[in-house]
Structures are given as structure tokens and as C-alpha cells.
């Protein structure tokens, strides 16, 4: 039975750990961090001590071992227990900032960046998006020009998660003119002269996750900071597409599941017209529609994650899972706010935060339309 791999004794224990950590270390402070606009470093340290940052990273890189199923269990259980998609995005930014470094096998970079980050001592970010190139990754213009033992980097990046707190930014740069083969990844320490955070961006949601706009002006970076070979970045980034998309799919069904739980609780306790709201058939049907969206999404995502963990290359399926889960999430958080009534529109009501947070899921990590393009192409349509 396929369900077994999700409930081995170790994974049951991981789930319990994720829940306990979230209830004790996250939920009581989340409002405070939303107001502050960022997560404290101490949270990274605590999560590292519990081994949560290193899940699905190899032990040789300072990780904890485990695979995509373990990281999905960690994320979904944190969401079920009251964490938020924004919190996961910021606490686990290393999930996008480190895989290329770890995958490159470069021992020096792994020691300098991967190990301390997984130990909660450093914070990393991944900078791909630019003011005039987002979905069209090959359109980026930030340039790194070789000068002896260094690269001189010039350009701008925007919408970069965790970048205002980051110690290093894994940066996608242009080292050649070929749209795809002219791209490279280079790790830039944020204290390098010429690098600056232009501003912290104000957002609709994901408030506890800081997002920055970055400038690179004649930033001299040692050539040893290059991740993988020059010109190999597009392939490196593409290799991580599936896990990034499945990660966001998990946010989708995880948040939807939590929003449904909160809503069931609410309509049981809220009385209108002399009866609890759940007494209305229309309300119960709405809950059932939400339940259907959650379950179908979760089961499909789990299925794809299992195959991904087993080593299959799944471009279309990962993109389908993302779009399915994002659509389910948008539907469920919308209905959750609706059934909460005026309270659902108020700051301080949990579903209100999920409603705002959910909006990014269909834009980041490959917009819904871009996913659809990819799926059509993969299917030969």
C-alpha cells in the first residue's frame, strides 16, 4: 500500500516533532513576526537544533538525511499545526538557496555555506528575478564579467525572499550572451562592497517573510564562488524545478487543509438564526466542496511526491500538482473567509492571513500560466 511510506514510525515521529515545534516555537509569536516583517534569527537556530532545516539534505552537507516525502511531511504538518505559508517560505529559504551548492559537490562552498546554514548560523537567499525578467528567466541581465580571479557583478534583483536578512545570495547572472547557456550561478556574500539591499518591499501577504530589492554595483566576487561550471546555471535551476513546485503544492493543500479545519470549528460554534451555522445545508455543502478540493489535491500531490522521491523525472506532473493545489487553496481560503463572515475580513483572524498569503502561490515558483505552457509542451500539445 502506498500510504505506508507516509506513516512509518520515523515519519510519525517527524510529524509529532513538526507539530510540537510549531505549537511551541511558532504559533505564539507569528503575529509578532508578521508585524515585524521578518523572522528572528533565533528561530533558525532553534529549527536547526531540532534538525528541521536539514531535512532532505544529505548528511555529508550538514543535513539530516531523508527525502522529498520527509520534507513534505515537515511542511504540511507545520501548516496543519498553525504555521503559515509565509513562515515556511522564509524559514526554509535555504530550500531554494542551497540545492545548487550541495548538488555541485563543491566541498569548499558546502563547508562555507551549506553546513552553517543548515546549522541555523547563516541565512541564504536565491536571486533569479529582476525588475524586467521574472517568468522569462532567460531574459535576465545581471552580468558577471571575469577579471582575473574574480567576477565583477553588475545588475539588479527584486522580490527576493529573505534577502534583507541574508548573509549570502545565490545569484543567477549572465556570463555569456546565449540566452540559456550564458547563465551562471554565483554566491555573493552580502557584506561584499557594491552589494546592497535597496529596500524591503511591502507586500499583500507573507508579511513575516522579508522580501528585498537588491543592487549589485561593481561587486567583486572570487571566481571560486561560482556554483558548478560557468554557463551551466540553466540546467542547475531546471533540475530543482520539480522539488520547488512540489514544495509549493504542499503549501497549497497544507494551507487549504488548515483553513478548512478552522472553518469547520467556526461554523460549529457560530450561531445564526437560532442555530449553529453548520446546521444549514448550504454551509455543510460548502464544507464538503472544500473537503473535496483538499483531499484530491493532497492525494495527487502525495502521489507525485512519492514518484519524485523514487527518482522519476516529472515535469508535467509536478506542474499539474502545483496548479491543482494552488487552485484548491485559492478556492478554500476564499470560502473560509466567506464562512467566517465579517470576522473573516479582520486582521487577527487566522483565515484572513491565509487568504492574503495564498495569493502568491499561483505567481511565484512559476506562474500558473507558465505551468500550463510547460504541461502542454510536455504532453506534446
Amino acid at each position: 500500500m502506498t500510504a505506508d511510506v507516509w506513516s512509518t514510525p520515523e515519519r510519525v515521529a517527524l510529524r509529532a516533532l513538526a507539530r510540537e515545534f510549531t505549537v511551541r516555537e511558532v504559533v505564539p509569536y507569528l503575529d509578532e513576526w508578521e508585524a515585524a516583517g521578518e523572522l528572528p534569527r533565533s528561530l533558525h537556530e532553534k529549527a536547526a537544533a531540532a534538525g528541521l532545516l536539514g531535512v532532505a539534505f544529505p548528511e555529508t552537507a550538514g543535513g539530516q538525511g531523508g527525502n522529498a516525502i520527509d520534507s513534505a511531511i515537515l511542511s504540511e504538518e507545520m501548516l496543519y499545526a498553525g504555521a503559515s505559508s509565509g513562515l515556511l517560505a522564509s524559514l526554509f529559504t535555504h530550500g531554494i538557496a542551497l540545492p545548487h551548492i550541495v548538488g555541485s559537490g563543491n566541498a569548499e562552498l558546502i563547508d562555507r555555506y551549506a553546513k552553517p546554514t543548515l546549522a541555523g548560523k547563516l541565512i541564504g537567499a536565491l536571486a533569479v528575478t529582476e525588475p524586467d525578467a521574472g517568468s522569462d528567466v532567460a531574459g535576465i541581465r545581471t552580468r558577471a564579467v571575469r577579471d582575473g580571479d574574480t567576477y565583477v557583478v553588475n545588475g539588479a534583483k527584486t522580490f527576493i525572499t529573505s534577502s534583507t536578512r541574508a548573509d549570502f545570495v545565490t545569484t543567477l547572472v549572465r556570463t555569456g550572451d546565449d540566452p540559456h547557456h550564458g547563465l551562471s550561478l554565483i554566491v555573493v556574500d552580502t557584506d561584499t562592497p557594491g552589494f546592497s539591499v535597496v529596500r524591503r518591499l511591502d507586500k499583500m501577504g507573507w508579511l513575516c517573510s522579508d522580501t528585498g530589492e537588491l543592487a549589485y554595483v561593481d561587486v567583486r566576487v572570487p571566481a571560486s564562488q561560482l556554483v558548478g561550471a560557468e554557463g551551466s546555471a540553466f540546467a542547475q535551476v531546471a533540475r530543482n524545478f520539480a522539488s520547488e513546485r512540489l514544495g509549493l503544492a504542499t503549501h497549497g493543500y497544507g494551507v487549504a487543509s488548515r483553513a478548512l479545519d478552522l472553518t469547520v470549528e467556526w461554523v460549529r460554534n457560530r450561531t445564526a438564526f437560532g442555530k449553529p451555522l453548520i446546521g444549514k445545508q448550504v454551509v455543510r455543502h460548502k464544507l464538503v466542496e472544500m473537503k473535496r478540493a483538499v483531499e484530491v489535491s493532497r492525494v495527487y500531490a502525495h502521489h507525485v511526491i512519492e514518484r519524485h522521491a523514487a527518482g522519476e523525472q516529472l515535469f508535467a506532473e509536478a506542474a499539474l500538482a502545483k496548479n491543482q493545489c494552488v487552485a484548491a487553496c485559492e478556492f478554500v481560503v476564499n470560502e473560509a473567509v466567506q464562512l467566517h463572515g465579517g470576522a473573516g475580513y479582520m486582521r487577527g483572524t487566522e483565515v484572513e492571513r491565509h487568504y492574503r498569503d495564498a495569493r502568491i502561490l499561483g505567481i511565484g515558483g512559476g506562474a500558473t500560466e507558465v505551468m500550463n505552457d510547460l504541461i502542454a509542451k510536455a504532453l506534446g500539445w
Partner: protein
Amino acid sequence: MNIVVCVKQVPDTWAEKKLSATDKTVDRESVDGVMNELDEYAVEEALRIKEASGGEVTVLTMGPDKSVETIRKALSMGADKAVHLVDAGLHGSDALATSYALAKALGTIEHDLVILGVESTDARMSVVPAMLAERLGAAQLTFARKVEVGDGTVKIERLTDTGYDVVEAPTPAVISVVEKINEPRYPSFKGIMAAKKKPLTTLTLADAGIEADKVGLGGSATTVADVAARPPKQAGQIVKDEGDGGTKLAEFLASQKFV
């Protein structure tokens, strides 16, 4: 220093606890089991002592099959091995019987220190550590809020109502800890994965040399004769303050003989 930590699985603190209708023991099947909270502090203290001065930490649990979840948690926090005393004949043991069985099991494990929580959240007798020390003929250092190990000795700060006492004893010794002593670590994911490879020994009554008629419901010195559900909360009395609130409050306190 080789340390044994006695860890008990108890019904989830937040779950509604029930007693079995037939023999009035705690119904452990219908609710999730968790590690007795104070025992997490006991495990943490043992791990800290080990990290500072070496040795091995063994977890000892007496309880049904299900308690293995709790044993695994202690192993994933970092304990080295575990002994699980499990036998249908133990069901319904009272504190005296429990301490006897634990003492017998301890006879199979080399140790310098035994660390326990001061109390379990389900039965709350708070007597097992003292009884155990007595049965082992070891020094008892209870209610520790701080532990310092020396060469063949151990010193604790014993929490009292007004402050603390410093108590020192030679090893082997039995220590019970209060929650002020430390902050228990989370079991890391790597620890969870490593736990399944750590040695876990299962003991039956016979393995531990426990006499069957000294444990279980039949072998317990106490019997639970009857139980009654807690009466539902009475509706409170609301006193409206019409300038004489203070007087009315004082009258209420006097009527209840509080003042």
C-alpha cells in the same frame, strides 16, 4: 557515568482521560500516548551529564507494547539504548509494585545513576523515585533543580517550598527532577532516523526475575475500590456591584469560612 532514565508513557495531557470500566485502571488504548512531561527533563539531564562527562544513557520503561513510541522518542533525543519491561502480568501495578518491577529491571542494567521525573501526569503518586531508591538501597536525591556529578558522588539542589537544600551522596543514587532543571531538547530528525538502529531489549517478568504475585492488579498493595466522575461545575453566583460590592464579597468569603 552510566545513567538509567525511567520514562513512563502517559495519556496525552490534553486528552480526556478515562478509566477502564472493568478493572478501574487507566484506559491507555483509547487515547494517544506521550512521554510523561517531567521525564523529558529527566532524559535531558541525563544527556547533559553524558555530554559533559561521558558514559551511556539507557531508557527504562515499564508499560504495554504501545510505550515503545515513548522509548523511541527518548532514543531520538539522544539516549543510547533502551530496556522495555512489558508483560501482561504488570497491568494494574500500583506504586509499590511498579517500584519493585523497575528495581528488578534495573538489576539487569549497569548504572551509577537513575534519573526519574518527580511525578507522572496520569497517576501523580510522586512516590516511585523514593520507593525505588529504597528498594535499590541507593541514596535518594529527590526534587532536583540542579545536578552536579563528581568523582563517585553526586550533588543536587533540592527544591523546597522556601528555597533549596544542597544534598550530596555517593553513587549509585536515584534522582528525581523538577521542570526547573533544564529545557528539554527536541528529538532531531537525524535522531529519529538513528533511533531505530539503537539497541532495544524487551524484558518479560521472567527475564527480569520478577515474581508474578508481587505485581499487577493482584500483586498490588492498594486496590481501587470505587471511582466517581468529577461532578459538573456549578454555575457561579453573580454579584452586581451597586456600591456595596466589597461588602458582599466579604460576606461571601465569611460564609465560606475563608475569612
